[in-house]
């Protein structure tokens, strides 16, 4: 659903001038906000400038807000900051299920799910619950040294990861991993999702999820 976002874009050029570029109130989905800000940054802001965009979200109605914060362990961030300087991109490599390597550049702060969605990567069935820790379809496998550098894993993420097909010791959910400069150049593998009829199915899970 579309939320009301209040966007403040503040920046300064290397020459030292501080300028408030704009204060916008936009109603759109959070993915659109990110896309809009990325597009704006790429079109209008010269690369010699740094700037920061703040997006704050206010729920438009009690019903929507309550649903968002309803009794669930899956709270979503409702604000984000984004460093949009075009040189501040992080390169990420995805090894798809067919072995094909996809290399993209993405902004620090984006989750790996965001990257897959925004860049429309051809990975089937990725991100069904849209990043709310209610599925395991954004399951990714990391290299061990990278895995050890990642942020802490919550019980909620582990609960969903436990259901993932092909779980490994270096598996995480892509929606919970946000890019930072220290993750520059990492390679993540998209695990197989096929349910082979010769293999036993995952331990007796039934329908509620």
């Amino acid at each position: 659903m579309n939320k009301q976002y209040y966007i403040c874009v503040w920046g300064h050029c290397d020459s030292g001038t501080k300028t408030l570029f704009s204060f916008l109130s936009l109603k759109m989905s959070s993915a659109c906000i990110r896309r809009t800000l990325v597009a704006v940054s790429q079109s209008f802001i010269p690369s010699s400038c740094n700037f920061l965009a703040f997006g704050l979200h206010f729920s438009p109605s009690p019903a929507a807000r309550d649903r968002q914060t309803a009794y669930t362990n899956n709270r979503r961030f409702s604000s984000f900051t984004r460093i949009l300087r075009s040189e501040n991109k992080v390169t990420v490599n995805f090894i798809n299920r067919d072995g094909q390597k996809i290399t993209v550049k993405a902004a620090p702060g984006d989750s790996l799910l965001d990257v897959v969605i925004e860049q429309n990567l051809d990975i089937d069935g990725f991100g069904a619950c849209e990043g709310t820790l209610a599925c395991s379809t954004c399951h990714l496998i990391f290299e061990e040294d990278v895995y050890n550098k990642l942020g802490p894993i919550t019980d909620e993420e582990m609960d969903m990861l436990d259901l993932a097909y092909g779980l490994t010791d270096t598996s995480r959910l892509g929606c919970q991993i946000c890019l930072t400069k220290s993750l520059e150049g990492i390679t993540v593998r998209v695990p197989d999702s096929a349910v082979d009829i010769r293999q036993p199915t995952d331990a007796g899970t039934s329908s509620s999820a």
Partner: protein
Amino acid sequence: PNKSAKSPPRYCGGPPSNRKSQLGLALFLNLLSRSFGNSVHRSWRLSDYCSTEVGASHTGRSHCQSRLDIQVDLFERLPVPFGLVRFGVAPDHPEVKNVINTFTQTALHERCNFFGNVGVGKDVSVAELRQAYHAVVLSYGAEGNRRLGIPGEDLRGVYSAKDFVGWYNGLPGNKELRPDLSSETAVVLGQGNVALDVARILLSPLDILKKTDITQPSLEALAESQVQRVLIVGRRGPLQVACTIKELREMVNLPGTMPDMVTTDFEGVASVLKDLSRPRKRLTELLLKAAQGAASRQAGASRQWGFHFLRSPLEILPADDLTSTAGIRLAVNVLEGSHEGARAVPTGEVEELKCGMVISSIGYRSLCIDPAVPFDHHKAIIPNTVGRVQTGAGLYCSGWVKRGPTGVIATTMNDSFDTARSLLQDIEAGVIDVYSVKPGSRAVLSSLDSRGVKWVSFSDWEKIDKEEVRRGQRVGRPREKILDVAEMLRVAHS
């Protein structure tokens, strides 16, 4: 018609236009069919113009030389789509329903059509569909439930979880269930996620439920509910529970409730923890913690829930009036073997529990909707090989009717991808003759019209959707579901 894509798909691989995406399209369309007792059939009609390439990103490295614009038509028994995502997922799990956005994007694709209110096997036969389309995929899920097969099963106060869940989720056939919530203790038979959903809905504070899309009549009934204690009974032990940790954690954290379990049921469990796989280990640790009372007990917790292990139902006991439920007689079991393969063996001892409601959550069951389709009545699935039904080319199945009624959305989704792969392989191999001309929906719809069947398009569903959301907003809820097919049709065709 109204096929404009509203916003870019939130879900990777939604309706794009390149070669790989045609496969993607076919694969994703399977998602729409995860259904709860609804006849959803997907049929492909291949366009008359075939040329150039079909990509094969998922069916191995093979390439063939014809590009196909695959047209997919979905037939659904109810006027509304989405099946279990709408009628099975609990009202307090709204984030699980986010996948509806993905399904919607797929349904809005220009080569996809939705036809609701069409009962396959009733309004149109599978044979007619096979004549009209190059391929037919049956993915109508599991509309029935496994019976207990014990005396007292038909007493008032005994319900299948399928019906109880259908009741609080607004499935039209369960509108008149009127479950008896007047007794203090309810027994749920089965220890899977559906059993936990039922327990949680029975014990959730009303403050939580009234912000969800649970139906208004259910909310009112639950507001009057006298149920204070729910026992979740299973044949085997703690190491064999079929539920998953997220649902168990929700029970442990449920406000106003506390766990009430017998710690002797857990003897020997702690010592095998280290040998378990991580998912089973974490689940068992949480269960152990809850049983030992180390889990948080909220102040003022007046409602209780607990797992009751090693018990099989023998008989449901009537009250003095001989029509309502007063209790349940259970056989006491021991386990032979260990872990997933352990078997419950009766000891000869019995136990009786007092209760006024029994909800049987021992599994859904697919039905045979058309005698022309082979059906294994023992396993209650359509016999198949990787989704191919062996009655000549062009008939497939996917989802619960193919593999049996277990699995979360991701499991069923991946299974659908498998069936789609089989179908696409058959196209490539020429098993499906894409060069024969098939009439597609034209033929089916004209038959339906002549039979007076008022089918519902996707944009008609969108009218129903808007109306439900509008009614919900009036009472501060995400939606107020329409509970009645006639009213759905009235709104759809208004």
